[in-house]
């Protein structure tokens, strides 16, 4: 049992998460309430979805700094569709996903066909997409989203009535999150292309020699990320009930940070769905904890910065120790280490 647990690569991260949580819970027990967890879930579900999309990208050895501008663009398109085209939610979702996929596809084509390094290609598209969105909307909010969509966003699953008469439950938006988790997990774990994503992140030349069409994989991955971003936009808009073209400024860095904190390598090949979800959780819990622990405003950023650096350092030192243990030979007269 213990041995099996030790094999779980995400273990150090889980420990970090648990330690931080315990710490917060001691200072403020309301951290451990169901209600707080539901709030956490609802507030960070978009981050989690986008992080899973970003994970796919990082695994191939790419990066997508345009993610935030893509979700902004999809939000605007979604908002306009709902207000001016149709109130049909399903149709709007399809439009949102299609918009996300198209933008992802553009990134994928630039990267695979023109061989532009991902960070630059997406920096370029970020600049262009955001520029176009803000030029057309002028940054104005889209309010007046149809009521049926707002009502849809307010649905809760498994409602419970609290003592004060309020109803809490799992927010409807998990119907986007859960399928995305399952989808990314399934793609990465059980499809050949998913394993190809890992393979090309590990050694792109070998992947090509093995017969993987890496260009197609890149295009697939960026499109899939676009699709995920499309759904994230639906989730976001259904929570916020308006579209603010500036709402995601700088969000891409948070997404990338959460994924990397979750153990993914920016060089590709390493990272998992579980790890990413833990990375997102650590981020959410830290942010949540700042106010719950009543840390003074002007100290919060310092605390967050320190927690990020120290938890990743601990993880790193741990990994290096393991690395050392790995180079082990069956030395005569010594107990055998697991290789």
């Amino acid at each position, binding site marked *: 049992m213990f041995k099996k647990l030790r094999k779980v690569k995400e273990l150090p991260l889980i420990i970090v998460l648990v330690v931080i949580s315990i710490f917060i819970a001691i200072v403020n027990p309301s951290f451990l309430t169901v209600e707080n967890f539901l709030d956490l879930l609802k507030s960070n579900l978009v981050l989690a979805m986008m992080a899973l999309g970003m994970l796919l990208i990082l695994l191939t050895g790419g990066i997508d700094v345009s993610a935030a501008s893509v979700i902004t663009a999809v939000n605007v398109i979604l908002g306009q569709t709902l207000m001016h085209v149709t109130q049909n939610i399903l149709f709007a979702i399809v439009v949102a996903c299609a918009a996300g996929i198209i933008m992802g596809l553009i990134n994928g084509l630039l990267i695979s066909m023109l061989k532009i390094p991902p960070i*630059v290609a997406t*920096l*370029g598209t970020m*600049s262009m997409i955001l520029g176009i969105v803000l030029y057309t909307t002028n940054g104005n909010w889209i309010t007046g989203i149809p009521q049926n969509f707002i009502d849809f966003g307010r649905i809760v699953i498994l409602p419970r009535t609290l003592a004060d008469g309020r109803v809490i439950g799992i927010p409807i938006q998990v119907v986007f999150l859960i399928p995305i988790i399952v989808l990314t997990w399934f793609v990465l774990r059980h499809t050949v292309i998913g394993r190809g994503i890992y393979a090309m992140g590990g050694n792109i030349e070998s992947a090509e020699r093995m017969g993987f069409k890496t260009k197609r994989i890149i295009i697939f991955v960026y499109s899939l990320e676009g699709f995920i971003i499309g759904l994230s936009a639906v989730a976001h808009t259904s929570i916020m009930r308006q579209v603010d073209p500036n709402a995601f400024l700088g969000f891409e860095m948070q997404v990338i940070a959460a994924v990397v904190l979750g153990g993914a390598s920016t060089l590709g090949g390493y990272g998992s769905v579980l790890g990413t979800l833990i990375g997102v959780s650590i981020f959410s819990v830290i942010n949540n904890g700042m106010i719950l622990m009543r840390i003074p405003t*002007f100290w919060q950023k310092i605390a967050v910065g320190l927690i990020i*650096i120290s938890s990743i350092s601990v993880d790193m030192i741990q990994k290096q120790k393991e690395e050392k243990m790995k180079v082990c030979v069956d030395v005569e007269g010594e107990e055998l280490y697991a290789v």
Partner: protein
Amino acid sequence: MQSKLKKVFSSKEGVLFVIFVLIFILMSILSPHKFLSNYNIQSLAYQLPEFGILSLSMMLIIMTGGINLSLTFTATLSMIVGGLAMSSSFESTGMAFLSVLIGVVIMLLVSAVLGMFNGLVVSYIGVTPMLATLGASTLFEGISLNITKGGAISGFPFMFLNIGNSAILGIPVPMIIFIVVLVYMWILLEKSRMGAAIVMIGCNPKVAEYSGIRVKKILFQTYIISGILAGIAGIIMASRYNSAKESYGSSYLLQSVAASVLGGTNISGGEGKVLGTLLAAMILQIISSGLNIFGLNRYLTNVLMGFILILVLAINFITDYLKKNK
């Protein structure tokens, strides 16, 4: 001779230079009195250095295979601490020269220390540069906010403003500083053993280590240099803006990555040219200024900048492709 010329123009720097000249000519034709005015050329010369130095600082780290997301906050935290020391010593002593000296020295020291912090986390602890510097940027921003409580540090002696706003023999002081930095960086990367080591570490740290290069030490030093460069940019900014605040120059962060890569720096490390980054920074600068003078919508300017970034790399790809299949 002709083939030499051909070689120059088919190099990445050559392409950038041609693009720079073309854009410059275009801007000049479109608006000869304004763009080519003496004032505008001067103003470009004042604007370029801070961005150029930050881009070089970013390029240096990218060459090691990393990235420095705390770049602008390094600049601002050091200018805040130095600025605080400068204005308070000026207030208490009234001696302008002394307090400017104190201020500048502290700014450089702080930036070195912040660089050291990044270097420590990246090289000795081994944290991925992206994550380490992202954490550091939150930390530095937090410390800055904590010191300023959201305001700006000001009250610098008038003498300090000369650094960013005056000229010697008609050459703006920031430009002189920039030229010194350029020469230093050129020598560092092209002529020195540290540069040679940085390049090799950027390609393959393991091989470098196996060849007796003190990889950790050099990485550490590289982050310190990058920090100090950010500090120098910070000094220029503080002086040009007559104050110090945590948010100054935040828009330079991604722009400096763009300038590095546009200038031919390999984003995965091991390759980069000072000249290329300089040209790229100049291109971005004249586009931004030129379009501003025309009064083009800022967002369309962004669209255009993004387009040019992709275009240049696409051109690089196509010329490479044609060369290969010749």
